[in-house]
């Protein structure tokens, strides 16, 4: 059934269709609608899940950790400072190999206090061991939320679904809401391999000495490596059921391209329009959208970008002291290519704190990249007042 819904409610509907069993969350702008709708579903009985009210995001994730360890399918949502407040418990979920799913609405970190779109909140959690999937549309948000549970439970790792503040969270788009039977076929009930059992008490997260710790981390890394195959398989099943596919990284009009933009989130949609216009003018320009950020789809990106002369990465984030984070990741991924196939990589930092990234802004990036002799030593800041 097609519905016109905001991105936040696309998350809520996805969680409901996934037959989530425990939800614990703390409200924060611009995420609140996600759990607001879920709490109403729980209250009305529409969703037979336990909604645990808490006093903070730290406790929300702690509750999710407990519920997930008990074997329940578990969800939370947060944003920005709320996510930052969860930081310690993000490690507990990932290190505990608990398939918690979280929707994080990307919002800038303060100060200065800012509620608008920016990826620094989730990218700051890069090394907590969470899988991260960045969405472009509300349809992708709903589909990704459902896929996230299957992915998480298949590899015993937590998944973060990312959607842009306001551009998705509060913008209504037509979304095809799949029937419950379809989702049930795609997503079987969770089968936890470890499960808390009061009849056989034992403690999770116990002390591990140096002689065992590395093995745990390597197991976690192996699980991350398996994500690529599991996600591809899940997405293939999803495509079979819905005719929609969401690859880890998607190439758009990259054939014979002299310049390829690399984007994530809603900038992608804007860039598609710019590329269509430039292609109409005969310019050989394409796009690669990165959906999966952790684990980073390095092999796939090498395949998509090998031999492209110039690549411009549009980063709606900044790692202070280094540069745009997607650009940084992509540079190291492309380093493995033979020098002849290795594109010149141009990094651009733009759109922080909700600043608009318009077709003109993207056009400027394209023109700047095409005319540059060589990449600057540091990423360029776009549209910044002098």
């Amino acid at each position, binding site marked *: 059934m097609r519905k016109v819904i905001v991105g936040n409610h696309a998350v809520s509907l996805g969680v409901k269709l996934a037959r989530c069993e425990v939800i614990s969350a703390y409200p924060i702008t611009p995420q609140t609608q996600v759990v607001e709708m879920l709490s109403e579903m729980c209250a009305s009985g529409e969703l037979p899940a336990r909604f645990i009210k808490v006093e903070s995001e730290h406790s929300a994730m702690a509750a999710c950790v407990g519920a997930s360890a008990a074997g329940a399918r578990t969800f939370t949502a947060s944003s920005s400072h709320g996510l930052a407040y969860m930081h310690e418990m993000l490690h507990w979920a990932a290190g505990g190999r608990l398939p918690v799913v979280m929707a994080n609405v990307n919002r800038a970190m303060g100060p200065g206090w800012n509620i608008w779109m920016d990826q620094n909140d989730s990218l700051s959690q890069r090394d907590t061991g969470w899988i991260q999937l960045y969405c472009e549309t509300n349809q992708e948000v709903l589909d990704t939320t459902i896929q996230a549970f299957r992915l998480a439970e*298949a590899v015993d790792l937590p998944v973060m679904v990312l959607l842009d503040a306001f551009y998705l969270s509060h913008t209504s788009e037509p979304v095809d809401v799949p029937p419950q039977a379809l989702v049930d076929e795609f997503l079987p009930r969770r089968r936890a391999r*470890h499960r808390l059992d009061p009849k056989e008490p*034992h403690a*999770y997260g116990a002390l591990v000495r140096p002689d065992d710790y590395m093995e*745990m981390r390597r197991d976690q890394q192996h699980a991350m490596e398996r994500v690529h195959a*599991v996600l591809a398989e899940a997405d293939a099943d999803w495509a079979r059921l819905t005719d929609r596919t969401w690859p880890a990284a998607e190439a758009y009009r990259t054939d014979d391209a002299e310049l390829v933009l690399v984007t994530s989130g809603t900038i992608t949609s804007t860039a598609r329009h710019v590329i269509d216009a430039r292609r109409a003018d005969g310019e050989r320009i394409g796009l690669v959208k990165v959906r999966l950020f952790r684990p980073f789809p390095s092999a796939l990106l090498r395949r998509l970008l090998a031999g492209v002369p110039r690549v411009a990465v549009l980063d709606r984030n900044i790692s202070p002291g280094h540069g745009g984070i997607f650009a940084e990741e992509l540079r190291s991924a492309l380093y493995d290519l033979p020098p002849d196939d290795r594109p010149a990589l141009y990094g651009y930092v733009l759109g922080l704190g909700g600043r608009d990234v318009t077709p003109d802004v993207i056009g400027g990036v394209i023109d700047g990249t095409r005319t540059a002799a060589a990449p600057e030593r540091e990423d360029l800041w776009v549209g910044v007042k002098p």
Partner: protein
Amino acid sequence: MAEPVTATRDAPLISVSRASTLANRTGSWKYIMPTYRDGVAPCNARCPTGVDVEGYMELLRQDRVDEAVDLLLRENPMPAVTGRVCHHPCEAACNRGHFDEAVAVHLVERELGDRALAEPPPLPATRREGRVAVVGSGPAGLACAYHLTLLGYTVTVLEAEAEAGGMLRQGIPSYRLPRTVLDRQLAWYRAMGIEIRCGERIDAAAADSLLAEYDAVFLAPGAHRGRPLGAAGEVGPGVVPGLEFLRAVNAGARPDIGRHVAIVGGGNTAMDCARTAQRLGARATVIYRRTREDMPAIASEIAEAEAEGVVFEFLANPRAFHRAHDRLIAVECDRMAQGEPDASGRRRAVVAEHGAFSMYVDTLLTAIGEDAVLDCLPSAVPVTNGTIPADELGATPATGTWAGGDAAGVERTVADALGSGKAAAMDIDRALRARRGVDVVLDAPSLRWAGGAMSMSRWRGDDPVQRTAPANDVVAFDALNPVHFTHLPRHREHPDAGQHGGAAPDGSNGGSGGYGFAEVNPGLASAEALAEARRCFNCGVCNACELCLMFCPDAAIARTADGRFSIDLDHCKGCGVCARECPRGAIVMTREGL
């Protein structure tokens, strides 16, 4: 669907400890620890009779109604009476009043009192040697007789009037205290073995012979003589002491008081006079020299009087009376003003320069206070300032003689009189046992509910309510955690269920407005009264709600076989969550024992 890649996955490598965490003695971290320490609920502390209100409310919560009645009867000899006429300071003190509305203790008490009267009275468990004479059958005398009887003594009550009850019968109108209730109460005492002899007026000589005949004498003659106003022309037709008027009406007389009746005074006697006069068909006006806020009468009595049509003339005081043909026709009043505060903290009433007025009255009833008539004292008992000097336990300077109630300077309420009779019963018990060589110490402070009235259960040492000791601090509202309570409206009496329009049992008419002598306040239906008891917070006393157990982050709290709680001090880290969460302030954090 194809078998997913993940179907063959291994279990993820995680760290799990199968050893018990009890090996970690985290209790060694604490520098402060929780202790279950029951306090005293403010209702108990403020009850002049010393009733364990909190205790019986808890028994009612557990549906242990018979035990609740028994607990109440340990301390209060006449809950059916006090449930109707007490000014219930327990409710003014009730912590629930800070949350929504105070528990309607008096209505619960009344229900239990009525249940008690429907059953045989309690009987003494043991008999003790000793005969005690009680002079006066008002609440103080009856309380002393009741408690001494239950302690095993033989008691004779001597009443000057033809019927027992003292002020309960002489002063309190039947619309507040139906005579059927009082009569059943007295029959109940007689069934306990208390001898009540009426028509026995005691003078000094008779009192001396009582002292010789009995092992102890308790004097509770009350205060029955109305104080004169001290205004010109006061002595004469039409000016009647209010108490005398009440006594006559309560005895069944219907004196002709005319159409316009004024009552002078602001206490409960004044309210009783005014409402009784209304019932005889008069229009009653209360003349009071101070303001409404200064009135010593129970607030509900004032409100009910007003609802029944009684008019109030505040800041006025009679100064002269006018008569014609030997009939009172008018009273002339000074207009009063408020002066400097007096010893009671109320502003002194002073005569104002202007505003004197006269009003037509057929009868004026005086109700500005009563004095004790102390012609019944043994010769060895002195009189000080018009009262019998008695210590906190009622002992007078004369050996073998105790006193209580209005004549002994006790606060003039039924509840205080009951408390004074009980305190004296304890001291008489001590003295009579001492006389037989049993030396028992009576440590009054430890027997009092946190500085309030004495607890007979504590004196007897057999309190069925097991509280942790030491338990003698009042628990204030800020020591509670009201987060765990839900708002519940106080149960109210249904006016329709009352008998406002009804005729008195003797068939006499109601007065103006249709108010009769039948009971005004209907009480609650039995189920409602028991439901009201569930509004009690049980301030300060653990009632095993188990929130401490649920909230303890170290799972260090467990129920014990006797239904209480134990704290595993090897694992309690002293975080204080239990004390913080306890809804009733029954857990304290302390360094004691560490």
